[in-house]
């Protein structure tokens, strides 16, 4: 590994770059899916390669390859420099980077059971046991899945950084779809879109408790078919933590990405309403809203030891006591705004250049018991488990749908309702947050599929949340 890295940095330096870094990644993945009592697919894959990022003539270039030979390393390093020099033909100013502390380190993931040491048969059997429990009259589709990955990444820079980093991820989730011939309803566990993900070994699969929840969600899917539609109008809502996690993701995580803010993602993902003039001067939410970017959060898949610029994992506030106070940034963007680099540059794999990504964006828990949150509502809805999401390109107007809801009347949970949706404008919504559940309900959810960038990069991020109560929200679109 060291040879590849030395060769790449040497060739880059030969072509006169002012900065270069190299990442070599070797990743193994395993994905198991079951459907209606059978194995639907097992995918075992491995991918390795390297990427070289350079600044030449004051502009960025990046190239990458799966071929780890001396000849290809030279070609790719030279290509990265050629690409940078082509970029420089349109530059307005030279790229400059914030100064950072340089580390040499090796970090192994602390897992109890290596997920690749567990036989596939055991994994299949857990999923098929859960499948059996979901096999109720009216359920037409039962799905289960597990995903495991393990990678070693070596990062080195022309400034002397040298990091060897291990990363292990485990995932499990199930879902049941019910139909009565007219309507179709879905329930998922522990959350939608594949379940939950953590930086843990196979021990995580037991913690997820699929078997304890399989019958319940299948039964709920059937009940939803005859449930009444979610009411519509302005009312109070409580979001369960996995839905609140996605709300944080879309309405706080993305708009605090400084590359978006500075217009660097305008071509695809969009920009942000949290412009630099608002930093430290904008009431993002109510006084009880505290949101952190915490790459040090234990087991969180948005966490890591060092980011892809070699910055050691940090925790910073994005929103403190409701004030907007921080950005997710990179060495380049932090320099532009004279901010402290906080380490949010991440690349999907060896074949992508790092961009600013969420780490673990967490809403700090409040002090309320669930019963207290409910008892404070005369007319409202409790909503759980995301079904749909959409938000404008400045991250202001959002609309979410959840799998399930329950009416709240006179401080008590009432009937189940189907197709709950709510919408709003980001800062108005968060300013109306008047209750956050305590740490007993707090959980950091792994979201493996955050898409951003061109070329597209799918990133593993995470969000900590408890319950959240929001006043005077527009509920209901579907009738």
């Amino acid at each position, binding site marked *: 590994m060291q040879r590849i890295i030395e060769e790449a940095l040497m060739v880059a330096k030969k072509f006169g770059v002012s900065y270069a870094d190299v990442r070599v990644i070797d990743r193994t993945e395993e994905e198991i*899916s079951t459907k209606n009592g*059978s194995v639907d*697919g*097992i*995918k*075992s*894959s*491995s991918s*390795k*390669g390297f990427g070289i990022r350079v600044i030449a003539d004051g*502009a*960025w*270039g*990046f190239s*990458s390859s*799966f*071929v780890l030979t001396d000849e*290809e390393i030279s070609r*790719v390093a030279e*290509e*990265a420099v*050629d*690409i940078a020099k*082509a*970029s420089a*033909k*349109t*530059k*307005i100013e030279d790229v400059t980077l914030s100064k950072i502390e340089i580390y040499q380190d090796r970090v192994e993931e602390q897992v109890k059971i290596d997920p690749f040491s567990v036989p*596939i048969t055991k994994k*299949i059997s857990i999923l098929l046991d859960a499948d059996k429990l979901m096999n109720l009259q009216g359920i*037409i*589709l039962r799905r289960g899945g597990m995903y495991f990955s393990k990678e070693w990444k070596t990062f080195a820079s022309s400034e002397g950084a040298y990091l060897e980093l291990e990363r292990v991820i485990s995932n499990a989730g199930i879902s049941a*779809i019910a*139909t009565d011939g007219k309507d*179709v309803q879905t329930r998922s566990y522990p959350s939608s879109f594949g379940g939950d993900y953590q930086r843990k070994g196979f021990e995580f699969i037991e913690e997820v408790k699929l078997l304890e929840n399989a019958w319940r969600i299948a039964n709920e899917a059937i009940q939803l078919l005859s449930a009444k539609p979610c009411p519509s109008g302005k009312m109070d809502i409580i979001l369960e933590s996995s839905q609140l996690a996605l709300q944080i993701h879309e309405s706080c995580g993305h708009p605090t990405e400084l590359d978006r803010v500075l*217009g660097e993602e*305008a*071509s695809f993902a*969009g920009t942000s309403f949290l412009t630099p003039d608002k930093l430290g001067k904008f009431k993002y939410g109510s006084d009880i809203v505290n949101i952190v970017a915490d790459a040090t959060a234990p087991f969180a898949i948005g966490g890591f030891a060092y980011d892809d610029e070699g910055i050691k994992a940090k925790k910073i506030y994005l929103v403190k006591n409701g004030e907007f106070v921080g950005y997710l940034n990179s060495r380049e963007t932090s320099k532009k705004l004279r901010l402290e680099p906080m380490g949010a540059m991440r690349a999907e794999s060896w*074949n*992508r*250049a790092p961009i600013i990504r969420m780490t673990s964006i967490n809403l700090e828990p409040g002090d309320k018991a669930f019963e207290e949150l409910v008892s404070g509502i005369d007319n409202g809805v409790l909503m759980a488990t995301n*079904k749909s*999401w*959409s938000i*404008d*390109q*400045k991250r*202001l*107007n959002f*609309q979410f*749908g959840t799998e399930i809801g329950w009416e709240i009347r006179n401080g008590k949970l009432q009937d189940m309702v189907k*197709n709950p949706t709510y919408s709003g*404008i980001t800062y108005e919504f968060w300013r109306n947050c008047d209750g956050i559940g305590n740490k007993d309900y707090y959980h950091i959810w792994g979201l493996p599929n955050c898409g951003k960038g*061109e*070329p597209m990069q799918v990133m593993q991020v995470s969000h900590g949340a408890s319950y959240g109560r929001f006043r005077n929200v*527009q509920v209901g*679109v*579907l009738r």
Partner: protein
Amino acid sequence: MMTRDKIQTILKKSVSFSEGDQTEAMLYGGKSYLTGFANNHIHRNVGENNYNLSLRVAFGKKIGSASVNDFSDEAIKNTVKRAVEIAKLQEENPSFVSFAKPEEAPEKDFFVEKTAEVTPDMRAEYVKKILDKSKEKGLNANGTFVIDLMQIGVLNSLGISRFCSLTVASLKSVILGDTSSGYSIETSTNVDDISVNSVIEESIGIAEMGKNPIAVEPGKYEVILSPYAFAEFISSLSYLALNARAVEEGTSFLAGNFGKKILGDNITIYDDGLSPETIPMPFDFEGVSKKKVVFFENGVAKDVVYDTLTAYKNGKESTGHSLPQPSSFSPYPMNIIMKGGDLSKDEIISHVEHGLYVHRFWYTNPMDPRRAVITGMTRDGLFLVENGKITKPVKNMRFTESIITALNNCIELSKEKRVMYDSSSITVPYVRIKDFTFTSITEF
């Protein structure tokens, strides 16, 4: 790029190393370059050389699969061994009959040398034309210029042996003004088909027309959707409705409706991987030739796409729409085309007394799959149409509408079409739709 011979050798070796009853090897990859620009300069400029070998091994009805991007003999042997182990540990898949069987199929290739010869400097030159014009107009240019050089080879122990190479060039411009934005994209296998001037003209034109938008109330509007907006609106049909898996799983609104007229008379939508109107692909990831599949003919639900597994299960033949296997999204239509009408875009606009012209939709997501209810935002150009003319720019709005309802309310279609490409293609005209529902507004 790898040579065709090298790809064939890797595929043959992969199959020969296997002890399975049936073995399939698929190698896919190539080189890919993207020059990205923002704030009137190139800010991201990247290249990639990557291939992936996917293997499937079957013992009776037990299938194992594994993939790797190291093509040394040792790595291939280990990957075959892994696929064999997985197959042996599997339970039987009762639906599995066979991998794809050989068929008469002429070779087709879509590799354009001119596209493959584009260098980083040439990409910068294309982009610079957009940047210069944007600066001249006091605007802010953003976008990408993408060059993809792809190869795919499929070989299986039953005699399938296919190879194809393909180039794609795509130039996108998103122009930002202080209170507006405009969008344009052109995509082709041949870089010479891309007109940088028309991309500049459209994206800057929309941005300039969009200055100082007014707010209008949400509600039902007659709309003219550009091909960009319409392709985005119907794109989720690919996985929600137009494939055998979605029908089987009950999420497709075609389930139980085949042969019935469920959309308007003027709605004919099909998939055709070999049409000159699409970014072509002669065969799928199992090596099966692409067949033309008609989803809706004059509003009548006709058929959906199949891969080998769903075809055998339903007593049909694969239509050549497998994704790389195993995949929970397969089969998948990769080349959706909608039949256009006789009118020009301007004629359609001239017929609208009061409505909205939507240049682009963004962040669409299904809210109710069975009813195909989609929500999303307008972006990069929304205009009021009054008495047959575009009159005023409008602040962006959220729509929430069923595709089924909208395709029953479609009054007119244009003869002009655009192909939108993002790994798969959708080629559609401008459409005029009545009673399209906007549910809320945003601040810009």
